[in-house]
């Protein structure tokens, strides 16, 4: 077979950054090649250099970054040596890029239609008279309803998914040959993610474009890409077709990533690398203490949370919506469920479904509007948050937060953070005793004791997550609410933390309410699952039932939207 000249050929690419700590090699001797019409995924965890590679190709590196070795050839032209004017001509016209966080990627004070026109005008694609029409046409192609009206919209008036469509329209307006998509769906709901990825694939296939998809999600990459390039710490460790990587990964790192990715059919233990001692421990535990479903610990009955809507009255004159809306907004609209002792219950839903509001009410951090929350027989819903903070009950319900960085006081060392609940809610103890307890907790969560005197900015994401967990279990609570505790972590770190959470739950006899949008993670950790949407419970039941044979259409849609590569044998 004749070897066609690749559309994009990256050879030996090495990029260095000059930082305060000296020169750092972000990317080293990277080879990536993309043929015409191909979709290639670059996969890696944080720090792998996958984004830096694409920035180097587009030559939009930070001022501190430089290509020190290697070359990037695009249809024969050497991009690494091209002048800025030549690059500007290529950007948007031949090679386009879309980024994470779509709303921030658009100019907030400029109409979206005009932003598309700017690109068209820059690359002289269309006569000025036809600019607006072409922009509307692009909006239509990315499946935005009522494109002529939406032309006049500002980004803040559009949802996240719609903003990403506009960004795609911007990128494809001048019919480039190559599209680079840098984590385009991170932060979007799973159903939106599917819609956006399907759109990208459809449009690029239609136009015979090549695509580079950069992501940390191996499942996503395997589903939508022909070939995968796996990167670790600035180097390429493996390049193969998606099928090969998925079914028989060669490199140990790829194997580790594959194992760590939550997927149907895998148990928690399977996520860990084969040689991990924790895996062996897990096996013993599972047999010994298998969730004794006892009395209900937490009972929620017809819980409601209402928020007043902002600014009515004169404002409605200027509203663009023809129909008036009610004065209050129901974030949680009468839900009822229970968590039994020793159980792990998952609360899933997309953004805006009310799961976080529910968990915050259960935590007694905000007031509820109506309903009853019973904990171990006591009605805690009626107690105000300020009062609850002073009751002994406070220490029995604790929380692990989503963002490990945000949930640690930047001015407290790790040990001070962990000691906080002990000092405030625990029995009076001497300094040494408190310190000893913190060290014991650190050991329990697998945090090296010598890290206890560090500040959060000196710890890695996984280490910070462990500090948060140690703090939550410090007073042996009965119930822990976990709000997307691993969402901000790399997949390999996530695997270890999930196993840790399971181990702790069983050894300390706790119950979990696990709030998440990631059904695969919930499947691994939870005995029962509750699906929420628009403030209501759509479906609830044992995990295997709900996720294998869902009753509700919405649940079915959610499951279908999860990327699953189909490699038939």
């Amino acid at each position: 077979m004749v070897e066609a000249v690749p559309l994009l050929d990256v050879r030996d690419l090495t990029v260095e950054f000059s930082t305060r700590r000296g020169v750092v090699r972000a990317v080293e001797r990277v080879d990536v090649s993309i043929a015409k019409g191909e979709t290639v995924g670059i996969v890696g965890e944080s720090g792998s250099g996958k984004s830096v590679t694409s920035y180097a190709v587009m030559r939009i590196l930070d001022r501190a970054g430089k290509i020190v070795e290697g070359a990037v050839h695009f249809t024969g032209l050497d991009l690494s040596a091209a002048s800025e004017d030549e690059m500007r001509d290529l950007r948007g016209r031949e090679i386009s890029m879309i980024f994470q966080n779509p709303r921030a990627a658009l100019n907030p004070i400029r109409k979206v239609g005009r932003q598309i026109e700017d690109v068209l005008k820059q690359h002289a694609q269309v006569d000025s008279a036809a600019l607006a029409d072409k922009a509307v046409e692009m909006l239509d192609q990315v499946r935005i309803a009522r494109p002529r009206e939406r032309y006049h919209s500002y980004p803040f008036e559009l949802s996240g998914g719609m903003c990403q469509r506009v960004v795609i329209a911007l990128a494809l307006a001048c019919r480039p040959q190559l599209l680079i998509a840098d984590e385009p769906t991170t932060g979007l709901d799973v159903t939106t993610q599917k819609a956006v990825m399907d759109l990208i694939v459809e449009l690029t296939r239609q136009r015979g474009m090549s695509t580079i998809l950069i992501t940390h999600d191996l499942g996503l990459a395997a589903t939508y890409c022909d070939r995968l390039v796996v990167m670790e710490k600035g180097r390429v460790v493996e390049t193969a077709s998606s099928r090969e990587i998925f079914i028989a990964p060669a490199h140990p790192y790829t194997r580790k990533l594959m194992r760590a990715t939550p997927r149907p059919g895998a148990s928690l233990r399977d996520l860990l690398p084969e040689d991990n001692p924790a895996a062996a421990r897990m096996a013993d535990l599972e047999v010994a203490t298998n969730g004794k479903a006892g009395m209900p610990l937490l009972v929620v009955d017809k819980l409601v949370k209402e928020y007043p809507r902002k600014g009515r009255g004169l404002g409605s004159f200027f509203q663009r919506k023809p129909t008036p809306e009610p004065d209050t907004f129901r974030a949680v609209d009468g839900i009822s469920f229970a968590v039994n002792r020793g159980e792990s219950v998952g609360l899933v839903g997309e953004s805006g479904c009310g799961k976080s509001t529910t968990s915050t009410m259960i935590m007694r951090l905000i007031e509820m509007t109506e309903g009853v929350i019973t904990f171990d027989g006591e009605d805690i819903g009626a107690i105000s948050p300020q009062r609850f903070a002073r009751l002994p009950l406070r220490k029995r319900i604790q929380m692990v937060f989503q963002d490990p960085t945000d949930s640690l006081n930047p001015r407290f060392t790790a040990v001070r953070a962990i000691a906080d609940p002990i000092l405030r809610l625990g029995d009076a103890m001497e300094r040494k005793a408190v310190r000893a307890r913190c060290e014991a907790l650190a050991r329990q969560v697998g945090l090296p004791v010598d890290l206890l005197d560090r500040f959060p900015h000196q710890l890695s994401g996984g280490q910070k997550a462990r500090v948060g967990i140690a703090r939550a279990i410090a007073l042996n609570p009965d119930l822990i609410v976990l709000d997307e505790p691993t969402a901000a972590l790399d997949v390999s770190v996530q695997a270890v933390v999930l196993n840790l959470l399971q181990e702790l739950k069983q050894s300390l006899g706790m119950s979990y309410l696990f709030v998440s949008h990631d059904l695969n993670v919930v499947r691994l950790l939870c005995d029962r699952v509750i699906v929420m949407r628009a403030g209501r419970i759509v479906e609830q039941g044992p995990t295997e039932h709900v996720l294998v044979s869902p009753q509700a259409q919405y649940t079915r849609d959610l499951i279908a939207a999860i990327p699953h590569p189909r490699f038939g044998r």
Partner: protein
Amino acid sequence: MTNLALPREDGAPSSGLGAALRHARYILRDNAVTGFAFALFVLIVLAALFGPYLVPYDPLASDTAAALKPPSLAHWFGTDQLGRDVFSRVIVATRLDFLIAVTSVALVFFMGGLAGVAAGFFGGWTDRIVGRVADTVMAFPLFVLAMGIVAALGNTVQNIILATAIVNFPLYARVARAEANVRREAGFVQAARLSGNGEVRILLGQILPNIMPIMVVQMSLTMGYAILNAAGLSFIGLGVRPPTAEWGIMVAEGAAFMVSGEWWIAFFPGAALMIAVFCFNLLGDGLRDIVDPQRRT
């Protein structure tokens, strides 16, 4: 923009004074200007403390025979219309102006800083009241308000300090409020509530330590405004009374002579003013860099 995960540095001393000093020294080396500002600051403090004991002439002694002499070896900065040595007066004035600056800033920090932090953290009525007070003060052109306060209460140093503090209140409160507001719903604040911390304890023990660095930066900048304020009031005639040596009033006394060519009477005190304020501003900027490199201006 690009996500660089730098390798964990193991073995580095992680906390405490040692690390802070190392970091500070690193920044100062990186930024010679801040080091210079700091040295100048030390010089000003020394002049304020020891100046009056070291000056060659009595700042209040007049010698009409030697009036209006230009700078010479005998009188480094020349003499003014009453024959007083300008150099001595400028050095002695350092103490008064510095005192005014430090005291007003301390006052404004307590009044404005605490009020602003409480307003930003608690919201509700606290926020509304503090906001109203700040708005009312800001409805006046600030210098004019200072003029009015001093005129009404009398030209004393205490009143100048009070007026300066009142006039700087809104700005300080606004900065404090914004910082507290941002952190109000942060994860670690929620976690503190879960750990049984009451609201006031959270405010003082968790939030305040986090915003102190920014407050210190603001204090340094406010010291500059305070001195300019006091000097401006004296220039109008509403500040300290003659024959007190204060930079502003010295410029006022020398202003008339500028037009006729005896520039030194107003120039040196004015230059001293400028250098002092410049020093505080540079220091504030440098502190800001040490505290939060993302906010470099």
